[in-house]
């Protein structure tokens, strides 16, 4: 099965990001939520996703910029923890993700007597990213070829096929699991790939997990 050529070639696409400054900055949590309502969805995406692209191997304490800011700059660890459990995979759209973040911050503020703000900390700067798709020229037709390619490909390709595919391009599952399922006819591997949560870790950890899954599948196929 794993050496059989797939129905469709998998073409790895990488991406490059340019960060755009929106010129909005919040110095307290009320401003943060008000601006979060106004900014383009690309900005919500930027602050919940692109850190993984920019820092593919360092796992920070909180998985999105809002939680990170609340903890580090405002020292509001309760809000940081509440924001950190918001899992973008639970949402079908960025608008739904934005609504959840807003409602959570609103709820948090309703129980406060004063609005927490940055004392000595830095403001929250809203940015957004412009993503440029870049075909890597790497094409594979078997799981073995896929495994070898994923170990060497630029980490932005992993980001593109997993993060971009899900929320920005609104695909039902990430491109890797879709290919395992549709082309390689490996539904179990596809389910395992789909179940990987990329928000808990880093791109390099994700790369390592995908490699392990492929190796296990290849060993299993070799044994049968």
């Amino acid at each position: 099965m794993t050496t059989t050529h797939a129905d469709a070639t998998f073409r790895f696409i990488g991406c490059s990001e340019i960060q755009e400054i929106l010129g909005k900055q919040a110095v307290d949590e009320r401003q943060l939520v008000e601006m979060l309502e106004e900014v383009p969805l690309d900005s919500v995406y930027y602050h919940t996703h692109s850190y993984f692209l920019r820092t593919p191997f360092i796992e920070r304490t909180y998985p999105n910029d809002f939680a990170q800011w609340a903890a580090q700059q405002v020292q509001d660890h309760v809000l940081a923890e509440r924001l950190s459990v918001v899992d973008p995979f639970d949402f079908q759209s960025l608008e739904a993700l934005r609504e959840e973040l807003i409602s959570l911050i609103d709820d948090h503020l309703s129980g406060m007597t004063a609005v927490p703000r940055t004392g000595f900390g830095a403001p929250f700067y809203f940015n957004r990213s412009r993503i440029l798709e870049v075909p890597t020229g790497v094409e594979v037709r078997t799981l073995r070829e896929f495994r070898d390619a994923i170990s060497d490909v630029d980490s932005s390709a992993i980001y593109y096929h997993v993060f971009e595919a899900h929320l920005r391009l609104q695909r039902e599952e990430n491109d890797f699991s879709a290919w395992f399922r549709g082309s390689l006819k490996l539904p179990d591997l596809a389910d395992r790939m789909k179940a990987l949560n990329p928000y808990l870790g880093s791109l390099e950890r994700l790369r390592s997990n995908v490699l392990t899954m492929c190796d296990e599948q290849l060993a299993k196929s070799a044994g049968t």
Partner: protein
Amino acid sequence: MIRELEQYRAVAPKGAIDFLYRLSHLVQGKRFLHISAVRYGGGMAEILRRIVPIMKAMGTEARWEVIAGTQEFTDVTRRITDGLQGREETITNEMYQTYLDVNARNAKVLNLDADLVFVHDPQPAPLVDHRKGGKWVWRCHLDAGLPHRPVWSLFRRHVLKYDAAVFSLPGFAQRLPIPKFLLYPSIDPLTEKNRELSRAEITQVLDQFGIARGKPILLQIARFDRFKDQIGTIRAYRMAKKHHHCQLVLAGSGVLHDPEGEAVLAEVQQAAEHDPDIHVLQLPPEADREINALQRGATIVIQKALKEGFGVAVSEAMWKGKPVIGGTAGGVSTQIVNEATGFIVHSVEGAAFRIRYLLSNPGVMSRMGAMAKEHVRRNFLITRHLSDYFTILKILSTE
């Protein structure tokens, strides 16, 4: 294979060089013009000197033009630069006219035709009045977050004629009705300041400055300027010194023809008196190999400025596998991943505590140093800068 790019394969992240080849295919034949006031001196010129030939070799029609000025022009642009960085300055009508006239003269002799024109810093900014086509971007390398208002008002009229502006940090930008992009500076790992050095080369420099081996070295590299807070670093060292036999190296330049720099240097020397473990080194501007060796010989690097630009010296130290203890000013906290590649501190006491913590935990120090190097490899090397330029060229020239 492009030789100029291939030499970075050993230092760039996995897959990055092949990715750059692919990215460059998207902008083949595009004309990308950089314009600045100087060809030598400063991080921007260093990076352009390397990047422009690489882009050219990769199929982009990249060029770099430098404007010619007069002494009056240099004086007025220094005032504008200082004013944009918050210093109170007066620009008279006559000065302003000189600024416009010199740019107009340059516009007549320079070929300004390109798909994307990157104009670096305030000196050549009025060239936009003579644009021939393509997209024009003003690249601000300064911290213009809190400018002297009259200077900003005067200068802003030029910026508004651009299609976009690029800043090094969000906090360095002003409100503008044009798109504003964020582009971090970078370091070149192959230059004299950052290349690998042998143990013998490092030892030779440490010996040259009388720095003892076998005793932990705390290092701050910054010009002698009140905002760099060398005195604060000495206080932090003294607190740590009660618990660890360490030495402090304060190395910097910037006192030549600068009375304030001289005064700060004198204060620092006075504060360091009677302590043979504090080394105050006044370095010439061309001391790249010495800075490299000091950074590589250091145990911990401190960058505790009160006011800072992007502070690319942080990335230089991190590239050499050193944990950095830095303040929150400028871009220092953008480069350090707190508690992963070093520590962000808010006070002298905070710096002292982190120095003690690291000196007591050599394992943590080496883990942080290794992670710091990886962080720079992916975020602050010239290869990332090249990728940014290709991307912005593609995005803006096709919009």
